[in-house]
């Protein structure tokens, strides 16, 4: 699986003498096994960008290629693409509508035209992936807690067996335990099922722990496309665009200024702990 955005731009008034761009000249590629995070200030074009990836929005300029084929070609089967590139919107629990959890998760597979048995098999598999016990099958999605609803919604997309999963702030509004649960699940999906993941996030801490690659957006343009460590070295530039590095990185920098030889690349509590122990143990 290879999903490529090639010089895509999106403007609300493409014909105006000076178009206003929501996304401007962004190029990036996502491959199987990637775990990437997309970060940027509110209004930096993240949500617009991810809608290109499954053809919900057509860029005003540039191309979107899935396995080398332009998805906005006339005859391209967008429905199949949307099944292969699963998109989980912000607050996905708001899209639940069926009477039971199982039926709701079956909605995607049903639209793919699968047999009833296969729909349910896929739905049960997806429930297992997101860690929902079988006892949830016949419950109404509306009586679940926020975190559980979100799992159901994510399972609804996973049931289509996507090769690439894009999640728009999947942890917004969840408590810390719910947040770790969801992100852990996504991480496991990427590791075990080989699904490529793109995570839109505001939390540098989450990104530092889970992502292997960061896309940083600034006013519609792609500012960085690198590993988290390399990106967080630009923490001063990140601050200028309303972002920051993880707090641990700041502590590492402060320690270095005081003369401790810890690595400035420490991003997570565990990494910094190791570094401090190493320095102290010397």
């Amino acid at each position: 699986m290879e999903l490529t955005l090639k010089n895509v731009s999106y403007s609300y008034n493409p014909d105006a003498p000076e178009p206003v761009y929501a996304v401007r000249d962004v190029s990036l590629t996502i491959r199987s096994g990637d775990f990437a995070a997309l970060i940027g200030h509110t209004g930096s074009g993240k949500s617009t960008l991810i809608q290109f990836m499954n053809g919900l929005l057509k860029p005003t300029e540039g191309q979107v290629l899935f396995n080398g084929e332009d998805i906005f070609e006339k005859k391209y089967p967008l429905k199949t693409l949307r099944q292969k590139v699963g998109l989980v919107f912000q607050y996905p629990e708001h899209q639940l509508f069926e009477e039971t959890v199982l039926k709701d998760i079956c909605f995607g597979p049903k639209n793919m035209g699968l047999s009833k048995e296969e729909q349910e098999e896929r739905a049960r598999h997806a429930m297992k992936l997101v860690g929902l016990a079988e006892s949830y099958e016949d419950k109404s999605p509306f009586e679940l807690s926020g975190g559980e609803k979100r799992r159901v919604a994510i399972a609804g997309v996973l049931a289509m067996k996507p090769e690439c999963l894009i999640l728009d702030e999947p942890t917004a509004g969840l408590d810390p335990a719910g947040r770790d649960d969801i992100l852990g699940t996504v991480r496991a999906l990427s590791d075990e099922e080989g699904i490529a993941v793109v995570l839109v996030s505001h939390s540098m801490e989450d990104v530092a722990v889970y992502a292997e690659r960061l896309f940083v957006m600034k006013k519609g343009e792609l500012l960085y496309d690198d590993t988290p460590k390399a990106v967080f070295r630009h923490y001063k530039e990140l601050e200028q665009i309303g972002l920051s590095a993880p707090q641990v990185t700041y502590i590492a920098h402060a320690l270095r200024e005081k003369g401790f030889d810890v690595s400035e690349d420490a991003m997570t509590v565990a990494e910094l702990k190791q570094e401090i122990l190493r320095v102290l143990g010397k």
Partner: protein
Amino acid sequence: MIRDITIGQYYDTDSVIHRLDPRVKLAFTLIYIVSLFVGHGPWCYAFAFAFLVFVIVLSRVPVKFMVKGLRAMLVILIISALFNLFLVQGEVIFSWWIFRITREGVRMAVMMVVRLVFLVIGSSIMTLTTTPNDLTDGLERSLRFLRVIKVPVHEIAMMMSIALRFIPILIEEVNKIMKAQIARGADFDTGGIIKKAKAMIPLLIPLFVSAFRRASDLALAMEARCYHGGDGRTKLHPLKYGRTDIIAYIILLLYLGGMITMAVLLP
């Protein structure tokens, strides 16, 4: 996708008409409609037309927007014209097979169309020059006398402005849910009526759920800020008549007076 829906067709510009008190504009609409039914004959309608042009010029709203409202009325206009044309009895001036057109029919058809066109344009002036909120404010104030017979005027006006306020929010919500369901393979565009109607279920249920959630959140937020209905509630910008409003009322009365005189004196 559902976009570009403008409800409450306010045209944002600055003009004498825009600045008028909403109550004056309500009165204008009412008086103008009454005048259209008081008047009959070409002179009266010429007078009504002149007055309409006068107001449109003052409002500085492009005529294009005025006429837009007519498009929705086109079917009704045609039907009422046809009915009058063929069904009114009188002196036959043209007949073919079962169709008969009478002189009175032609007269009635023309009058009906002119009346309806003026009516639509006249009332769209109000909505084009008044924000929905001003409009409900004006309505609340003008209908306050109904409180005497226990009509909850304030509550109705509040409901109206909340409803108006929520239309853009709900449209955005529809867009969001639609995209989310399309991402799950939903298909809103193909198939016959029944398939399309069925396809709306995954859209409508989440929409209703969210509308109820928003309503309950809003009610809570309002209560938290001590909202308890209209009694004793004051306004940030109370409606007050200014000099232009008085002048506008005088012009309106002169217009109505003129119309009645013409209707009585002219044949």
